[in-house]
Structures are given as C-alpha cells and as structure tokens.
C-alpha cells in the first residue's frame, strides 16, 4: 500500500509510530490514512473539504469529517492526537501561522509538507516570463488557485522560529524523488517538515 503513496506521504507513513492517534488535515481520498490504518494499526481521523473525497474516504471505512481546516480544528481538544498531518495544504490556509499553532495544539507532533515557491524553475519562470509560474506541482493559474499563501523553504523555517516551533526533521523532493538538503530552497520542488511544540 505505502509504495503507491506520493513520496512525502510515504515518508510520513514510515515515520508515524505504530498504533499512534493521527489527524490528517486535508486528507484527500484517504490514501495515507488507509495505509497507516492497514500497515501500522493507526487510529486515523481526517478532515477534508471536498464532499466527493469525503465520500470515498467513508467508503474505505475511514473516519473523515467534511470541513474547513481553517475553522474546524478548533473543535478538537488539546493533545487529542499523537501526530497531526498537513500535507500540501498549508499554502491554502487563510492564516498559515494560526493553522500551525492549531496543529501543534491538537497534535504533539506535526508533519507539514508544501510546494516550495523558491524552487529554481519557479524563480526562472517568474524572472524569464514575468508571470506567476504554472508547474506540475502548482498547475493552476494565479486567479483560480487555492494556493493563496505561497511559501518557500526559508519562509517556513522563519515562521517556525517566530512561532517557537522546533523543527525535528526535514525532507526535500524534486521530480517525485527525495533529494539532499543542501541548497534545498533552490533545488526542492516541495518540502516536508516534522515539527513539535518546542
């Protein structure tokens, strides 16, 4: 199961401890939740905004609530989860800083992945064409994208520092493969961070 996951999700699946309580915020069709449940006996819960994706999760026997992460995280008690996951969703939040705080309120640790807007192809597209880049990972024009808060690896590290959040681990990916960390803000198409309340 886990080998069909997107690379960042596969890393998360490998990192989550056996039997953990997990909240997947923006869980999509539930692929990661199902892998965690089946492979690691994880008690997984999800939040997803798209009703058709929620329906698919329910059909897989997963517990997923249709809702808006900006609004609905507040209804979960403090420390309800061992791990909170926010994959490729931070950049869609109304207030990414608030969402980070909420993640680490409901979860003791969090995995956060996001497309890196400082990836060199993005920079090049902006410099050479003078237009907002449209790429495989950010495939939609600026006026219709859900990604309203573009973020870079460096931005995320600074936000973590400002919030007093400790970065436990980081992984970088390009062309659907994990790459090393050097020059990541140039070289990484997207990034995954493991953070804790510090």
């Amino acid at each position, binding site marked *: 199961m886990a080998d069909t996951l997107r690379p960042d999700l596969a890393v998360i699946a490998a990192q989550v401890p056996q039997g953990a309580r997990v909240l997947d915020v923006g869980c999509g069709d539930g692929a990661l939740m199902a892998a965690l449940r089946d492979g690691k006996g994880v008690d997984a819960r999800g939040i997803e905004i798209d009703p058709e994706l929620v329906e698919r999760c329910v059909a897989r026997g997963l*517990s997923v609530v249709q809702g808006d992460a900006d609004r609905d995280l507040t209804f979960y008690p403090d420390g309800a989860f061992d791990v909170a996951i926010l994959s490729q969703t931070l950049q869609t939040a109304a207030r990414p800083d608030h969402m980070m705080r909420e993640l680490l309120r409901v979860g003791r640790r969090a995995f956060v992945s996001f497309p890196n807007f400082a990836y060199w192809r993005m920079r090049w597209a902006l410099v050479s064409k003078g237009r907002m880049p449209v790429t495989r990972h950010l495939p939609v024009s600026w006026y219709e994208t859900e990604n309203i808060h573009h973020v870079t690896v460096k931005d995320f590290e600074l936000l973590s520092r400002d919030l007093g959040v400790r970065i436990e681990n980081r992984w970088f990916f390009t062309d659907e493969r994990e790459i090393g960390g050097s020059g990541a803000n140039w070289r990484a198409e997207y990034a995954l961070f493991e953070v804790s309340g510090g």
Partner: protein
Amino acid sequence: MSNPHQAFVLPEPLPLDSGQALSGVEIAYETYGELAADRSNAILVCHALTGDQYVASTHPVTGKPGWWERMVGPDKPIDTDRYHVICANVIGSCMGSTGPASIAPDGQPYGMRFPVITVRDMVRGLVALLDGLGIARLHAVVGGSMGGMQALSLAANWPDRAARVLAIATTARHSAQNIAFHEVGRQAIMADPNWQGGDYYGGNAAPDAGLSVARMAAHITYLSEEGLTEKFGRRLQARKDGTPGAKTFGFDADFQVESYLRYQGSGFVQRFDANSYLYITRAMDYFDIAEEHGGKLADAFAGTTARFCLVSFDSDWLYPTAESRHVVHALNAAGAPVSFVELSAPFGHDSFLLDVPALDRVVKGFLDG
C-alpha cells in the same frame, strides 16, 4: 383485540422520562434477512415521525412499497443478504405499537390519558425489544430525521448497544423553528371539532381535517423551495373532466401545489392517528440530548464505543447542516471516531428518502467498512 401486526410484548413495565411507567407495552416490528449465528449482523433501522416498521415491505394499509425500499433489501446499500435488519414502530405511534389509540387497562382507549413520551422513551422501548430478540450489540443503528434522533439517543444512553451509528438529516435538539412548525400542526388537530379532547375513537368521525392540515404544513418543511418551484411552479391544476386549469376566482385547488398538498393530507389521514401525531411531535420537541446530559453535548457521548457517521443535505432547512456539524463537533470533543458529509441534493429534508446516489454510497461504505 389481537394485534394484526407482528409484535413483541415487553415483559416488564416500561419506565418513562415523565416518571410514569407503561405496562403491557407492545412493540410491533418487522425483520429482513437472516440473523447470523453469533447475532453480530443486526442493523436497527429507526423510522421518522410518521414512518413505521414496514421499511422494506408493502404497507398493509396503503398497499404502497416500504418507505425505504431503495435503501434496504437484497443488494441494496443496507444489504439484507448480509445483514439482519430490524425495524420497529415506536411507542406512541399507531401501527401496532402501544400508543394513544391502544386500549388502556380499563378497557377504553388511552386517548389523551396516554403519558407524554420522549425520544429516549421510544429508544428505551426499542432496546427492550432488542433484549427480547437476544441482540446485545447491533452492527449498526441507522435513521433519518426522527430516526436519526433515536440513533443518537441510543448512542448517548446505551453506549454499548451499537458498533456503528448512522444519523441522517437530523439534529441533537429541536430548534425554536422546529417546535413552532409542530405547534401549528398540533393546534390544527386540536381545533378540529371532531378531536373532542382526543376522545374520538368510539365515534364515527375523527379529526381528519385537522390532521390533514397538520400534514400539509409539515410536508412543506420536508421539501425545498427549489424543489417545489421545479415540481409545481405557478402551474394550474387541470380539472377532473379534463378541462385545462384556470383561476376560478374561488377557493378550489387552482394551483397544482395546492392540489398536491391536499392529496398528501387526505392520504395521510387514512394511515395515521391524530393523537399519535400530537404525542410524537411532542416527543420530538422535548428532544435535546445535551440537556439530558448536564447541558454539554460532548458529555452525552463521553462513554460511547461506536463509530459515527452523520449526513446532511444542502437543501434541508428543517434540520440544516449546522445541526449535524454541532453533533460532529461534540463527537470530536468526545474523541469519538466520526465521519460527516454534507451531500448536495435538491429535495430538501426528504432527500434522505429519495434518489441520492451519493447517500447510497456513503451508507454502504460506512456499514460495510
């Protein structure tokens, strides 16, 4: 008088929230599909305000198909090749379970001497039936509208009796608007001179006009404005002799929507008892699970062992999505595993009974998962 419906007689008096107790209570029920040897595959389907136990079999009075045949049956989302489905008439109703039309110990119909009951009392009766049938833990309890209230009440008050709770188009409490609509219906019944303080069973006239108006008013709340407009618009009703519809400058049912509502009202009185309507609407109005549990809804579900699934419909203004979300948030706070989805359907509150393929998929996925 023997009960024409299959019924279970409770061996003990049924205690009620009012402090009274009812003895000799009968619960009429139907079952579909085989019960597994280990009794683990039972699903209790709870019916709505005017529903009954004939969920997937022909109604003995109207001759119409069961009220949820699209959902319950072989190869249906609630698959009777796989599950043993139990559906029982709630107490207070009139299809074979003890209600105001039943004969009291003094040999006369209860009428308004029937005690006021609550949704929890209905569920207490259902749990007593499950005890009688030897079913300790349900695979699932399922219901829409008042059926969903019963499903939630069972989860809150008998937390070990169901492994899954599926509550559709429902709420954890009746709102002021819900109570207001019910009060209109009750006043229509009680304003009918044939009602006679509820003591009409011996005579030859029942408060049909009042009950019919109650049903008409309620029926509007089950539909959406969009649905009504699409179905009827301002179209005029053709006459019985085939002449096209016209404004009569009188008070006949000129508009198709008027004709439809009158038809709904007159059909309803053939199969439903006016006093039952009073008692069941009262029970729904009293419904507030949080109030039963110290004022905090999350506390009601603190001891639950079930997985939950709630479904709302975007066109349902009777029990709108916000009510389901309120329950979901309480379940989140209680740490209970819960799924929730708002489905898009044009039919208003009645969407749970109608052709909404996404609902079929959610129901099947949740029950089989």
